């Protein structure tokens, strides 16, 4: 399988990359780690005139903590996130999730920015961005803008990025005292796309969970927040409350039927995951779901 011919350019700065995108019109596209783009090109699902390589821009790499905010350069590789002490300390949800992203050779190349800009509905990371309340920093011809994760992911492989814009950084509020993260996914086989996954973060307070954000992925066309269920779980835990929250998932999720699972099975798995999540966040032994 051979990709159609494309030209290749390395951008030395974000400004230069933006200029290249502007000049290239629709035929130019950013090349980050390339771990999703290259298969698509190899299969000739798409063809491009120009690939603009932005992984050489040093300013786009790295992880640092500023005040209560974790700033991650968009070209930081998954492998670096996985081993980063800053991520482990301040965004444990992300650390848990990255371990599920593809496999080591892919993680050696793939970048967080590339992953988010690709907006694969089965990917773990967009869900984490929603659960963590991330801000995405975008640069385009008219300067920088900041977009909340909830406004960034628009649908199947669709984001708020314009064709001449670049996602340059991700800002995450660092884990607050008392907050806990939960991450789990059901896949048919290790390393497969998740049939259903859940990224969650919240603040257990006795029998309740405050500030809970529940975000499912692999269910529907994009990662889906479940505010109704989260609100219910702010009440004191009981089997009835859990059941109520589980029932509420039906309103927030639009699971699809496909060859991996039926919509009914996805909803059921989502409910099973919710029980696991609640038990784990509350530090309870797993009751039978």
């Amino acid at each position, binding site marked *: 399988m051979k990709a159609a011919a494309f030209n290749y350019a390395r951008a030395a700065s974000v400004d230069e990359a933006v200029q290249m995108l502007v000049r290239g019109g629709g035929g130019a596209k950013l090349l980050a780690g390339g771990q999703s783009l290259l298969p698509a090109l190899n299969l000739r699902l798409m063809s491009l005139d120009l690939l603009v390589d932005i992984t050489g821009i040093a300013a786009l790499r790295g992880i640092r903590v500023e005040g209560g905010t974790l700033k991650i350069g968009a070209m930081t590789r998954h492998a670096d996130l996985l081993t980063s002490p800053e991520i482990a300390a301040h965004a444990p949800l992300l650390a848990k999730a990255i371990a599920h992203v593809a496999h080591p050779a892919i993680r050696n190349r793939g970048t967080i920015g590339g992953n988010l800009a690709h907006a694969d509905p089965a990917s773990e990371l967009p869900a984490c961005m929603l659960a963590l309340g991330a801000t995405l920093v975008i640069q385009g011809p008219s300067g920088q803008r900041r977009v909340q994760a909830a406004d960034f992911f628009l649908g199947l492989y669709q984001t708020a990025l314009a064709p001449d814009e670049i996602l340059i950084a991700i800002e995450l509020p660092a884990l607050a005292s008392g907050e806990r993260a939960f991450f789990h996914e059901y896949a048919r086989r290790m390393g497969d796309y998740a049939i259903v996954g859940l990224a969650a973060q919240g603040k257990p307070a006795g029998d309740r969970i405050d500030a809970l954000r529940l975000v499912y992925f692999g269910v529907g066309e994009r990662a889906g927040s479940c505010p109704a269920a989260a609100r219910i779980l702010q009440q004191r835990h009981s089997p009835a409350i859990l059941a109520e929250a589980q029932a509420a998932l039906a309103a927030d999720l639009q699971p699809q039927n496909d060859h991996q699972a039926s919509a009914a*099975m996805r909803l059921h798995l989502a409910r099973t995951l919710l029980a696991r999540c609640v038990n784990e966040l509350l530090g309870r032994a797993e009751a039978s779901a």
Partner: protein
Amino acid sequence: MNHTPADQPQPAPTADAPRNGYTINGKLYFAEPQPGQCLRTFLRERGVFGVKKGCDQGDCGACTVWLDGTPVHSCLMPAFRAAGREVTTVEGLAPPDGSLHPVQQAFLGAQAFQCSFCTAGMMMTCAALTDAQKEDMPQALKGNLCRCTGYRAIADAMHGRAEIAEDIAGEACGASVPSPLAHAIVTGEARYTMDVAMEGMLHLKVLRSPHAHARIRAIGRDRAMAVPGVAAIFTWEDVPRRLYSTATHEDHLVDPDDSYMLDNVVRFAGQRVAAVVAETEAAAEAACRLLEVEYEILPAVFDPVAAMAPGAPRIHDERGEERGNIYADIHGEIGSVAEGFASADAVHEMTYSTSRVQHVHLETHGSIAWQGEDGRVHIRTSTQAPFIAKQKLCHLFGLRPSDVHVFTERVGGGFGGKQEMISEDLCLLAALKTGRPVQWEFTREEQFIGATTRHQMTTRVKLGARRDGTLTAIELHVVSNTGAYGGHASETLGASLGGPMTAYRCPNKKAAGYAVYTNMVPGGGFRGYGSSQTAFAIECAIDELARLLGIDPFAMRRKNMILPGDWIESAWNDPSDVDFGSYGLDQCLDFVEGALAKGGGLPKPEGEEWAEGTGVALAMLECGPPTEHRSGAQMRLLPDGSYHLAVGSTEMGNGSITSHRQIAASLLSARADRIAIVNADTDLAPYDTGTFASTGTVVAGQAVRMAAEAMRDSILGFARRHTGADCRLDDNAVICGNERVGLAELYAIGTRAGHHFEAKRKSYLSLRSVAFNVQGIRLAVHRATGEIRILHSVHGADIGRLINPMQCRGQIEGSIAMGIGWALTEQMVYDAEGRMVNPALRNYRIPSYADVPPTEVFFADTYDRIGPLGAKSQGECAINPVAPAIANALADATGVRFPHLPLLPDRIFAKLAPHA
């Protein structure tokens, strides 16, 4: 490839390499990649052939290289990106002093490969692992797929277990000596089909049909021909209009001549429509997309039962009206099943079905054809049957056999998929028409949509038994979906009604089988070959019947299993040429029962949602096909006193070159490494039908045995005459009385005296022996998620004497892994128009390291009186009991029978989940 001088390695890389400088294994190259080129092909164009293609999508890991010391998939890296960086491939893994890297040494010591196509990438990943990563090998090797080994030998390598035996003269047989190519494999020097550069090579690509059934009205070529670099385009109007079958058998009459190289009717989505040859693969691919094909869409039918109904769309309308889409049907009865069921105390009847799966040999199909300076045509190809491919090419092109040379280099896996001629013909056509060498390498997608698959079969089983468990009647009704073409259809159907039913003694048996044309991708040969499909049905049914009667599954099998001295029959009254050369089914059952009872493996996961169960299944294999099969071997003593052995049989990772050398070495009282072996080459080796149907040992190995005995007799006969003493061979010499004569010296003396130290023998397959396999499984299933975890896997194999124990174990483990994939993870999904929706490894899902539990493998202590040196068929049959053992364990765990493969979580969920 024609390299410009500037493309040659340059001295010493500089610290600041220029933009077009690429450091590959320490050598600096100046080159400009083609626009759009990935690093994988860029490296291969520099002659770095250790970098393999398995998928080109980052799923299989065969192309793994290091970029500045970090493993990456070179197929997912634009070549430009490696400029100024250091690339290391398997060729650069070893230190320059000629020793091996510790990982290479470990893979060598554990023989952690079979076809070895994955080995280079696997080692590049393993050699970069940190100690922490080594602690979690399932995670660490997530991105490297192996289809042959079942990963156990790879785990052994990573744990430093070296099991290769010393190569001792006369003791080769029964010892785990390494493959003759072991060193070449771990260093990346082993050459596969596509690992060659030739001057003036053209690349072939094929346009495949998007429609399941259509007549081609016209093909517009103008836009495609205008693509720069396109040399020629071929459509159905350009090929010899000669019918043939792509399936390869000794007797070509067992497969229907229902195919044209290119046809004006397409009968499945994925069928070849036209071929383009061009200066580059990219140009050929671009041109294929510019061909303008006008299709007249025809009604299609995908389900074989629907295809049998009156009024169904006709797939091959030149066939007689009364047969419709039924290509073959087989019927037989012994005794009277009606009476058998009448006398039964319990009857079980259920319909079971098995799914279509693909072989996924990591080396895709591919061939290179060219006209030589000798005026002949040469075809280098990835096949299990080079001699039959040659016959078919002669037939298609009207060539004289002496003008055609077909050969293999190392073949990267077959499993039956390469018992098919599906790439050689178009390459040869293009080479003949253009006068230039032509290569064609299948993509992974083409493997799924344009090669063959296991036949999907639906089996209705009816079993009757008396209260004590004694079977009174067995009735089978099989419908096989052969797809658009009938290669292997009747033979797999025959096999489906053979071994699995023969394994049980019962006076009343009845079989009916139908192989039906549909508009699906064609079925083909696949390890287990029809009998895997009905073994699933019968072994599940035996358990169900045992459950009805309250009898233990082991006891039920012991009560009814075939015993030595029994008349070996399924449902035919004809005598057969199958006999008990040995018998070890009882030992295998005892072992599996004992091992399951003893425990071992993993404990049941915690949580009451997990249910646990055990299951067993058995399988019986006839060692070799009922069709004709023959094989030749020839040996020569060489002037230096070493031996040359030529065998027609293909080595595709099954280990035949290793075991053939061992058989010969054993009989010649020599070390195995005294014997050089060539194989699978129509110029250099005697005729061989092909390596399929469990014949590598019992037919080709038998020919080697006979040739080696004749070689021995030739040497000893001359030595006796020459010295007048009693003589015996001792490695590289003959001991005659008190005298030791080196074989080199003897050769010189004998040749002067006009003696020929040569031997050639042919082996024909009859009598055939029987082999047995028993699989035991303990598993846990999660009632809410449908997840299945295999906790304990045990396997008993009765395959006669083990020529190479480690290799035999590897064949069994690989077979089991393939059976687990079939049962649990692999699935070809089609849309309503008959198009496959998941033709990629990332969502077809062959088992990865994490999916394959270790299996305790036990070998029955048997010595076969029919097979060579006590051995019988070794590599094929172990797959057959795996899926039913898993299904039986699942039924035991849940109390629910799941009669359809694969056992997917959503199917389990649908029957088990409380809210379903």
